[in-house]
């Protein structure tokens, strides 16, 4: 492994890139992971360090971090934990200073935590962390604005950096490091040609601008067309980069555009859908109403015999959208409202919002008034409860 800890034997002199250089024992040596520094670093050097530890291309690890972030923020948790626990190359001490054994245990615990997060969340399941997704997007944006590393640079080993001064403990172990410096890394034949990333970004910007002008000119352009355009252009440039030039980084753009397209398309397609239920007597009031996506209006204010609602429970549920519930005046209402994902609840003037929001409230009309129970559940969106005249 490139960052062999000081207390192990020096690695054999690597020959040309003739086979796997990292064995299972090396991979299990979690304490040997080092974050990259210098030009190879994009954000905190975590992905580069992990990629070097596993002897794979850093872009795979970077994409994995972004994808894992979609699942309960697992990627972000892992990244921050590694940033805190893993030392930079040339150092044995991380921001959270632990010895090798404690660091290994801590990293295993972090891995277990990430596994639990992954198992506990699904794509649109409860508690989808939009905030973390936005943070991941910002991190990806920052990462892509950092300068690309020099593909022709010497191998990614810390000891091979001509300017790097190895720490004293490593100097003793590696008596003759110059052999590494003398061996240039074989150029990856698939990393040949001009870097397409910035050109692709420029084309996307122009295309978005043109679409915006078309939109302003009065043509009917769906909001989701913007991220979809970026998604399609990402695909085109990746296909181009598969055969010509270097398309590194565009996968990240495509993933973010895909997520944005899904969100915007949901907005396009289902927001206009509106279902209104307005029963005129208690017999017509059902015990449950449900809508997968859109705006569900349950208006009980027209019920002519609200006394008959006494003791009844009405379940109103939805997936994504807006639940608008109106109850008759002169009725006590016991409300259990919850939104498992992001959203907001307004129950008789009591406002609450955020992620995984629950409101339990009792709206009192008077001691003699009938009591109605409303159970309202939603995954993402808004729930409004109000009193209407009957």
């Amino acid at each position: 492994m490139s960052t062999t800890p000081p207390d192990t034997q020096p690695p054999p002199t690597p020959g040309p890139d003739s086979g796997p250089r990292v064995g299972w024992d090396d991979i299990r040596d979690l304490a040997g992971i080092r974050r990259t520094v210098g030009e190879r670093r994009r954000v905190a050097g975590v992905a580069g360090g992990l990629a070097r530890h596993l002897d794979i291309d850093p872009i795979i690890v970077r994409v994995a971090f972004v994808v894992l972030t979609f699942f309960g923020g697992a990627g972000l948790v892992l990244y921050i934990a590694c940033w805190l626990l893993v030392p930079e190359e040339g150092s044995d001490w991380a921001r959270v200073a632990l010895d090798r054994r404690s660091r290994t245990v801590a990293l295993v615990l972090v891995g277990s935590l990430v596994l639990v997060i992954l198992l506990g969340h699904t794509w649109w399941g409860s508690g989808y962390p939009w905030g973390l997704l936005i943070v991941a997007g910002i991190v990806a944006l920052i990462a892509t604005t950092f300068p690309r590393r020099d593909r022709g640079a010497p191998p990614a080993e810390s000891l091979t950096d001509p300017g790097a001064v190895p720490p004293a403990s490593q100097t003793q172990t590696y008596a003759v490091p110059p052999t590494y410096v003398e061996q240039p890394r074989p150029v990856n034949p698939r990393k040949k040609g001009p870097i397409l990333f910035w050109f692709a970004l420029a084309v996307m910007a122009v295309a978005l601008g043109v679409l915006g002008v078309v939109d302003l000119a009065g043509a009917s352009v769906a909001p989701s067309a913007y991220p979809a355009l970026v998604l399609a252009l990402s695909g085109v440039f990746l296909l181009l980069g598969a055969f010509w030039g270097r398309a590194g980084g565009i996968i990240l753009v495509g993933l973010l555009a895909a997520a944005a397209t899904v969100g915007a398309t949901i907005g396009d397609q289902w927001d206009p859908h509106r279902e209104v239920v307005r029963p005129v007597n208690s017999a017509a009031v059902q015990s449950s109403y449900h809508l997968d996506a859109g705006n569900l209006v349950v208006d009980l204010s027209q019920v002519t015999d609200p006394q008959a609602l006494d003791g009844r429970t009405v379940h109103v549920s939805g997936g994504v959208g807006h639940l608008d519930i109106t109850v008759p005046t002169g009725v006590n209402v016991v409300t259990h409202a919850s939104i498992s994902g992001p959203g907001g609840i307004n129950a008789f003037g009591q406002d609450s919002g955020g992620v995984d929001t629950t409101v339990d409230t009792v709206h009192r009309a008077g001691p003699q008034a009938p009591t109605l129970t409303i159970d309202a559940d939603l995954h993402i969106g808004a729930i409004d409860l109000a009193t209407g005249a009957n």
Partner: protein
Amino acid sequence: MNEQTTESGRHPVNIGHLVMGVAFLGLAVIWALIESGAASASDLRWMLPVPWVAAGAVGLVATAPRLRGSRD
């Protein structure tokens, strides 16, 4: 290396970029079908896996000659 870069940017196929490119284009096509009304939301059930299957298949086809070559 600079000479190589300026001479030609053509290189052996990059499977990762090829696969993701096909997948993204497929997703964009699905979006276009949904937006244009040619497909409904219920069609997403069977349409969403299609780009990934296509991307995987293209990746496999592109990888096959390389695997055969490395066995020799």
